[in-house]
């Protein structure tokens, strides 16, 4: 019996050489980003562009710069569904398309304006793609973003991923698909996604200038605003984006430029954000319209004093800077609020706050929220503190003046 068992165990080794569905990595085409556009053909509505990385080009010291070998290639396919478009591409690619490393969902502006909802399903249903990928909206066609050959980075897809992995950086706001869909399906029924566009690369070396096609780069700027139907209804500029960051407590790395407290100097002072928290308190008015009190607490570091006068070492000066920061923050928040109201898209998370803080009243407000939202009143109280001022107390020029 034991011998028989041993025999079967040994024999079974022959059949256990690998996984049932295994594919060698060299047979895979690693998709790192996808872009969705509208197809030209009315029958085939979806145009899917994929960017496939050439892993050899990402190994430092090896292959890099090897002529004739590009760091990535792109392909576009059309179909009635995203899946059909994928198969359309695979007819032209000798390797199996692998979406496990797909970390970008770039939506063309046309698609975004028409409505993004039908495009979301595939990203949640796919076994390979993870729904925590970054979603962004392209100004123009998404295809152009992925086809951009950048001077500053090997592949435009990897460049965007790298940029977003750094976190909230000033007004660059990475939005993950799960966050986007959460916002769309939550009480707010509105969401934002960063916008990206192709711009001309301004600082080009002589070597880069030889390749005319490498004069482009990508710029992430502003936010696209989506309404409850998943249609892009407008954009937020950088000031409004900053306001949104304060309200939603998303600000991480941030910078404010405030005018110098000495009016006559007409100078500017840069403040770098060290930490911030914001709280939104909701009160329901007698007329049933909620009022929002937004309390932002921030800590700043003086990053730069662009001027040549003294008093930076005075405490009133620092206090005055903090007051100016408060004003700027309040202005940014009000800008975001009025934009959101104008678009009637509650991207500020107000409905969620009402739902959380006044669940009973929310049941009444819920159905009329699109009518109520443009009427809500917002009060901002900002409390800024400046705790450090970098590695120097005073502009060197100013110290000379004091001696004199």
């Amino acid at each position, binding site marked *: 019996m034991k011998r028989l068992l041993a025999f079967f165990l040994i024999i079974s080794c022959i059949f256990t050489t690998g996984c049932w*569905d295994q594919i060698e990595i060299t047979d895979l085409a690693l998709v790192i980003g996808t872009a969705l556009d509208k197809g030209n053909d009315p029958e085939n509505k979806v145009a899917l562009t994929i960017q496939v990385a050439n892993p050899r080009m990402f190994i430092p010291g090896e292959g890099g710069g090897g002529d004739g070998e590009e760091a990535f290639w792109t392909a576009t396919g059309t179909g009635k569904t995203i899946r059909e478009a994928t198969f359309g591409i695979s007819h032209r690619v000798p390797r199996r398309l692998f979406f*496990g490393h797909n970390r970008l969902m770039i939506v063309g502006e046309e698609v975004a304006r028409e409505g993004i909802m039908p495009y979301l399903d595939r990203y949640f249903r796919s076994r390979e793609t*993870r*729904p*925590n990928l970054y979603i962004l909206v392209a100004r123009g066609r998404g295809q152009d973003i992925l086809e951009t050959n950048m001077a500053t980075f090997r592949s435009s897809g990897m460049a965007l991923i790298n940029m977003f992995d750094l976190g909230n950086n000033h007004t660059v706001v990475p939005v993950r698909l*799960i966050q986007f869909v959460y916002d769309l399906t939550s009480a707010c029924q509105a969401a934002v996604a960063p916008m990206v566009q192709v711009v001309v690369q301004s600082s080009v070396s002589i070597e880069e200038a030889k390749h005319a096609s490498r004069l482009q780069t990508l710029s992430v700027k502003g936010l696209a605003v989506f309404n409850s139907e998943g249609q892009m209804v407008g954009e937020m500029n950088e000031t409004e984006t900053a306001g949104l960051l304060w309200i939603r407590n998303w600000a991480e790395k941030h910078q404010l430029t405030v005018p110098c407290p000495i009016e006559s100097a007409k100078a500017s002072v840069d403040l770098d954000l060290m930490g911030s928290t914001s709280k939104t308190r909701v009160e329901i008015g007698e007329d049933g319209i909620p009022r929002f009190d937004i309390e932002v607490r921030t800590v700043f570091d003086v990053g730069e004093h662009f001027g040549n006068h003294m008093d930076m070492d005075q405490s009133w000066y620092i206090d005055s800077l903090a007051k100016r920061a408060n004003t700027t923050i309040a202005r940014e928040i009000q800008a975001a609020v009025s934009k959101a109201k104008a678009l009637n898209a509650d991207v500020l998370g107000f409905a969620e706050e009402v739902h959380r803080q006044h669940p009973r009243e929310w049941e009444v407000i819920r159905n009329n929220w699109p009518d109520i939202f443009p009427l809500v009143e917002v009060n901002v109280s900002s409390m800024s503190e400046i705790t450090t001022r970098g590695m120097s107390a005073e502009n060197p020029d100013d110290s000379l003046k004091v001696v004199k």
Partner: protein
Amino acid sequence: MGDGKISQRQLAFLFFTILIGTMFFHNPQIVVGTTGQDGWIAYLIASFWGILVALVMVALGQRFPDQTLTGYIPNILGKPLGKILSLLYTIWFLFIGGGVLAQFANFMNTTIMASTPKMVFIITFVAIAYYAVNLGLETFVRVNELLLWVIVIAIILVVTLPYELMDLRRMLPVGQMSIGKLVATSLIAGSWRGEVMLVGMFLPALVTLKNTTRNMIWTVFLVGVFMIAVEISLVTVFGAQIVGDLEVPVFNLARMISTARVLDRVEALVLIIWVFATFIKICAFLYCTARATADTVGFQDYRFLLLPLSLLFTAIAYNQTVDPAKFVDFLLFTWPGYGLLSFELVIPLFLLIVALWRGKREKKV
């Protein structure tokens, strides 16, 4: 019966695995899908149902310390009726055990092994379970003592590692659901917890019955704590709305993990839990089926029944690999009636009342 004896600790460990095994996977989708972020309240109520089942089963077991559930049913109800009920329980074990295996096969097809035939998973697991149970109860109970720690650590990792994506305020507001809906959902969640009913088949194998009640209550309660942690993690990462729409939410949760860009793609953790827990669960159900068959028919030994029952098990499991919509429908509308409302709580409670009323106890030999 030459089966070896198991300790209190081993029993508690075994039931932890049995209870969390399948619950971990499909349950959050249904509970969060129906009660939103208040799912944890449903899990708390479900713990109460589970504890009730445990109390009833242990109370019955203490009246008949040397017999299994299917062994003492005829003593309580009399021969003809008791034998029929014992047979029903045998079929129930077979059916639910098959269901567990079918879920496993469906899960593997849904997640990572899309094109592997379901029969491959089913046959592999039944074969291993047959081998393990054939070596006796003590064997797989001891194996479980090792596997449990892996399962517990894997669950803790899966639940805590997506911390970067968590927004705890998504748990608010609390108490949006009506009590009626919470209780109804707790019956579904409680039917999984009610699998603690299986303890009736293991009690005679215990070295001593002392502290069994306390240990089983703790086991059921701890499973509840783990499920609440899972629910909180899911809701804070995805939001209640999305969790209800996801297929196998826990697996999706593991897919979100990307800690410091080093700990990435750790879905295998979920597979570890799933494979280990299914293995132990299949062993337990196969053992229960065999014991129940032997008791009902009146055999002394159950081992020679294992081979035919394994084949039956395979067929029943394969038969239950239905499409996902039907499956969720079953979990929502059929399973509570099958579980908590009949075989898990109501019938044992009825048995206990009859036993108390007729003053039935095991005759001292």
